[in-house]
């Protein structure tokens, strides 16, 4: 009875975006409810008909609490995934497999103003973790001051510079193009004009060789996405965005941002495995992709993803991004026309929202005739991605 493939079995029918801010002045619970309401209204779905909810573990209140605000009874599917946007995959399985009708994927994170914005001095002990390697790893890093993601990524990027010869003058084009794109996007609050290569070179080396401009800034936001089957989508308000394929990938000896024990630490094998699966399921290849929404939480991952996802050959990425012409709107492969996370702040689901807008043709930085968009997340750890297309 099983289906052979999840190809084209689900569609995105609504998006709800609460305006980004560096101090949103509300609780995450509040903005989670707000975003889901916006998404349901946009889609033309009655909130009572929502019967599935998925989210990332770290971002926002869980489905039960969110459902309590929304007054949603009888949720038939709920799931919390850890890595990137891999919750999307569960949403697709749930609607394609007949486990629920309308699944909402929501992400709520107030990273700029602080998610723990507790007014009282609530007494709470730190959670005790058992012997997982994850923690053992930090035991091995923290005493030496290797603390925080920019540092973890910098260790890998130093080696990447050494092995590929990529120069800061080349990598700088990732944040430059991000700033250009963000300047056109009103919800991208970090840039009102494009930066120059000089600005980039003068950006502070916070964890040398990682610069401040290589990192996505913290932001407060809340996004919800409604997913259902293409058949049900027909009766709804928006033009559906078909999910052609969705996949996740893992590779041996993986650790989040710190897979230092692999033979080679400067590629993204998780992303390569994910891409193989993504293209296989969807029956597409890198050449079919019109716009790429790549994980730019840290800039060095952009050239690495271009190679891992097959958009250029091994070792060609530094030249591919240099000057920015190939990755701009109008170029060979426009990357993150919304400004990405560098332009909008650290918020993974922005990529899905922009993918939807590009396909609907409603982006603030529209790429002409976009019919297929690839979304990738989880660079530097377990990866996931999807390809969506016009109906």
């Amino acid at each position, binding site marked *: 009875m099983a289906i052979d493939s999840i190809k084209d079995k689900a569609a995105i029918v609504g998006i709800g975006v609460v305006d980004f801010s560096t101090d949103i*002045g*509300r*609780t995450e*619970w*509040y903005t989670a*409810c*707000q975003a889901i*309401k916006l998404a349901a209204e946009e889609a033309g779905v009655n*909130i009572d008909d929502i019967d599935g909810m998925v989210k990332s573990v770290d971002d926002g209140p869980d489905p039960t609490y969110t459902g*309590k*605000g*929304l*007054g949603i009874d009888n949720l038939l599917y709920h799931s919390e995934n850890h890595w990137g946007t891999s919750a999307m995959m569960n949403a697709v399985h749930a609607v394609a497999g007949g486990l629920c009708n309308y699944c909402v994927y929501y992400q709520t994170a107030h990273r700029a103003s602080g998610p723990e*914005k*507790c*007014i*009282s*001095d*609530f*007494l709470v002990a730190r959670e005790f973790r058992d012997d997982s390697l994850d923690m053992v790893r930090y035991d091995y890093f923290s005493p030496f001051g290797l603390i925080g993601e920019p540092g973890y990524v910098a260790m890998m990027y130093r080696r990447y510079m050494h092995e590929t010869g990529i120069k800061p003058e080349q990598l700088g084009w990732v944040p430059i193009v991000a700033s250009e794109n963000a300047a056109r996007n009103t919800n991208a609050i970090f840039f009102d004009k494009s930066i120059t290569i000089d600005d980039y070179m003068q950006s502070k080396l916070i964890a040398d060789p990682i610069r401040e401009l290589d990192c996505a800034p913290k932001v407060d936001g809340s996004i919800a996405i409604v997913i259902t089957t293409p058949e049900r989508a027909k009766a709804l308000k928006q033009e559906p965005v078909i999910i052609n394929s969705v996949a996740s990938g893992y590779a041996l000896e993986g650790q989040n941002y710190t897979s230092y024990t692999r033979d080679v630490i400067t590629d993204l094998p998780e992303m390569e495995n994910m891409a193989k699966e993504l293209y296989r399921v969807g029956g597409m290849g890198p050449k079919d992709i019109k716009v790429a929404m790549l994980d730019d939480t840290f800039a060095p991952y952009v050239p690495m993803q271009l190679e891992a996802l097959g958009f250029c050959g091994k070792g060609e990425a530094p030249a591919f991004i240099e000057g920015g012409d190939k990755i701009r709107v109008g170029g060979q492969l426009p990357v993150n026309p919304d400004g990405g996370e560098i332009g909008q702040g650290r918020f993974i689901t922005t990529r899905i929202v922009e993918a939807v807008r590009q396909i609907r043709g409603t982006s603030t930085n529209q790429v002409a005739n976009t019919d297929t968009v690839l979304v990738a997340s989880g660079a530097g750890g377990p990866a996931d991605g999807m390809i969506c297309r016009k109906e």
Partner: protein
Amino acid sequence: MVKLIEGIPIMRPYIDLDNQGYWDAVKNHKLVLQYCTKCNRFIHPPRPMCPTCRSQDTMEWKESSGKGILYSYVMFTSPKMAYPAYELPYAVVLVELEEGVRIVTNTHEIEPDEVQIGLPVEVMFEDLPDGQTVYRFKKREA
């Protein structure tokens, strides 16, 4: 009936923007409940959206009569499962207020064998030495 053991702090409520009004009132010895003016309905615990009409701006804080009946209770008798700041035994009770919502609380001057489902109770407040205010429920005439 709840007696505190000196030196062990009791846990404080987690207060955020969604429930601040509730706890601010407690500080002033008032029990307030979230109320949706559109649906004319009390809501508890406090939340950022009315689960019936789904508006986020129709809610206000309305003072409760503070009267209710004991709906269920838990008697803590074993140190293994109890919070160490309270002398054993202590009761945690679920009170159904006249407004139709229930709240979790402790009892005040009710003997353990008097703690029974259906007991009429009303709210009282106590300021603790550590500066926080808690609400508890005592017996009342039915």
